[in-house]
């Protein structure tokens, strides 16, 4: 009994650093932010703390800017996540082939994920520059080629003003998000390596085409990886902050077209010093992400295949 108690104590002691961190740095702030969401607080001293009940939540329902930020975030999430999944899967399929030098390409495609986010965004500001940017230079060259081939005319055509035109800011951010698909690609790559070769062999013997093999063997086999990437992608894209914040200097871009929910939340908390309202914004985001995740989990029961399941 004494030995068992000592073992238990040792277990608690080893877990203590994590437990202390979890309680002090996660759970406590979580509870504090929930409590703050029912208060008004400027964050400069406890003297300004005032209980306001549900006022912050009521205000959110009438806050056109918050609703616009939520709309922007939803558009971004529902565009960037499927597109990102498709690109990551496409890359993984290409990189899963056993060809000489494939390791180099895997490294190259994963590399953006280990490069500093700020440096990457600064690079993209130049890529997207309307006049001198690499992207528009390529578009102009392409357009000139088409004209030379006798297809269409350049009269009145200008490539997009990616960061200046409200219609193009979100597409620009979606394009930029594809730069970071290396993480999802790696998960797909690992999943593809685990698809049993005999399943393809059996499919080929049954006369399945390459598309049919992909549709009926690959996709069901890697569905847990798709599910994982989808959930992580959704959570991440609803919390998009860095790219938009750096690209537009902490503001929402032209006509607030790139004002994302978490950027707005940050502005309210740390620039306008409205910590109570910002906490309410954070909890509403939590509920939205939770609801979406539950929806995906529900869908996963029908669509995700786990070996050993009935």
């Amino acid at each position: 009994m004494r030995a068992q108690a000592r073992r238990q104590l040792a277990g608690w002691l080893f877990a203590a650093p994590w437990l202390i961190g979890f309680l002090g740095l996660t759970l406590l702030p979580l509870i504090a932010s929930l409590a703050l969401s029912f208060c008004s607080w400027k964050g400069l001293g406890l003297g300004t703390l005032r209980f306001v009940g549900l006022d912050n939540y009521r205000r959110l329902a009438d806050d056109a800017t918050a609703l616009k930020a939520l709309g922007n975030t939803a558009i971004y999430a529902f565009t960037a996540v499927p597109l990102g999944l498709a690109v990551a899967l496409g890359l993984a399929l290409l990189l899963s082939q056993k060809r000489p030098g494939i390791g180099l390409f895997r490294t190259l495609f994963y590399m953006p994920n280990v490069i500093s986010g700020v440096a990457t965004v600064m690079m993209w500001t130049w890529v997207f520059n309307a006049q001198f940017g690499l992207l528009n230079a390529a578009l102009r060259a392409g357009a000139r080629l088409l004209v030379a081939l006798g297809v269409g005319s350049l009269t009145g055509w200008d490539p997009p003003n990616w960061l200046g035109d409200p219609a193009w800011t979100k597409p620009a951010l979606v394009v930029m998000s594809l730069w970071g698909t290396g993480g999802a690609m790696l998960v797909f790559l690992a999943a593809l390596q685990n698809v049993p070769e005999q399943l393809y062999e059996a499919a080929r013997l049954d006369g399945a085409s390459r598309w049919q093999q992909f549709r009926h063997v690959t996709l069901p086999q890697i569905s847990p990886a798709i599910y994982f990437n989808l959930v992580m992608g959704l959570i991440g894209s609803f919390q998009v902050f860095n790219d938009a914040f750096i690209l537009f200097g902490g503001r929402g871009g032209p006509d607030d077209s790139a004002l994302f929910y978490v950027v707005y939340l940050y502005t309210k908390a740390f620039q306008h010093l409205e910590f109570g309202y910002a906490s309410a914004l954070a909890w509403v985001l939590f509920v939205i992400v939770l609801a979406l995740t539950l929806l995906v989990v529900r869908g996963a029961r029908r669509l995700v295949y786990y070996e050993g399941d009935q």
Partner: protein
Amino acid sequence: MVRVLRSLVLTLAAAAALWWLFADTVRHQRGGGSAPLRVCFWGTFEEYGMWQELGAEFQRRHPGIALKLEYVPGGRYETKIQQQLVGESAPDVIVYQDEPFFELVDEGNFVDLAPLLDAERAQLGEAGEDLEAWLTARYWPTAVQSFGDRLGEPTAGGGRRWRQFGMPIWGGCNLLYANAAIFARDGVRIAALPAGEGLRREPGSGPGALRWTVDDRQWTIADFERLTRDLTRDDDRDGFIEQFGYAGGPTVSWLPFHQMLGGDLLDPTRTRTLFHGPEVERSLALFQAWRWDDARRIEPREEMGAMTQSVAFLCGRAALFSAGPWEMPFLNAARVDYRVMHFPRDNISGRRATRITWDAVAVNARARRPAEAWALVRFLTRDRAAQDIIARMQRSIPGMRSAAATFMAGNPGSGVERFVEAAGDYAIMQPIPRHGWVLLTDAWMRTLDRVRHVIPERRLTPAEAIGYFYSQGDLHALLPAADPEAAKRYQDIYRRSGK
């Protein structure tokens, strides 16, 4: 035996780890004799060097006070300090900017220095004067007012006692920087012209020949437009401009033009917004014209990409840009040859203006040894030796007026004395409200964005833009319109536009 030894080693290791983790916190909480006096500041590498010099000089004068310089790296200094104040771990002495200063004062975070100043004045036998007058005789008036509180406490005689929450350490106003290499190549000379003449077209032509003489003490906005248009060049004629005459920008870069045209953002009480009338409409029209109507685009925006105005200036993409003296250490380190120029005058009123901004040193209300904290504030802001160190660094005009001579002597021939002239003659305090500076600048920036919107159908006329400014609900809940009727009229114009 082994087990006992192992337990002992583990216990000692755990104790050492705990000591390493929490010793500083315990020391800080106790505020014992061994805890040093802490002062925090932000800045560039050069400014960090200046603080080392200031710290060493202070230690020479006060060997009994242990001083800890806390450099706050990166941006968002104010946010970091606010968080330290909330966590009750902020340094004893804090360098702070004027814009968000009173947000902290009103929450009781800074000590009122007036009694300490009064005690010092009594010692010097100078207590007869009003404190504000005494301070403004020694410091720049705008600097004193930026950190002083004229509302103060009521006195027995029915007046108000002046309160001073921060002592001005340094500051500066926006002026124009001219790239001397571009001016030489494009034939522009800065020199005095006869009274009433701000810009003269010279007969010379061809590369390097003198083509313009500009007298920046007299030139007008019309002169400025003529010159900057001429300096804007599309060398390879591909439709993209290689050199801009002027790289400006919104908010504080535009403020000098807005102020010289007679516009403002707040009423004199600084509690209500005042952003309408012909002056404001004229300011917005000019801002719009420089972006869109001018064939040569004086005021570039997205053409600069991620380039800041100072980078555009130093690499020769902009002949002129607007900034304060804080750009000088950067330009000096990059060995850019420049001349400081005054802003032009309004064509109609002949008025000159620019925005001036100040930083102060304040004592944290929770400072553990206020007397030592005051000794440091005194040294930094009242001691000529410290102010001379600051002046020599060329980052800012020193808060003490008498140290301005050292500032000017440090960079002869560059026109640096213009910063001092502007601070003394025509610089205007920024429109800083007591609360809501960020909301105000947000609204102002959004308004300027809409005035120069990239899509013509979304671009607002000046009157519509004023209506748009007055439609920012969050701002006006905090800072209501000084003239609600006028605000409503403009709001209707904006609403009717359907933009």
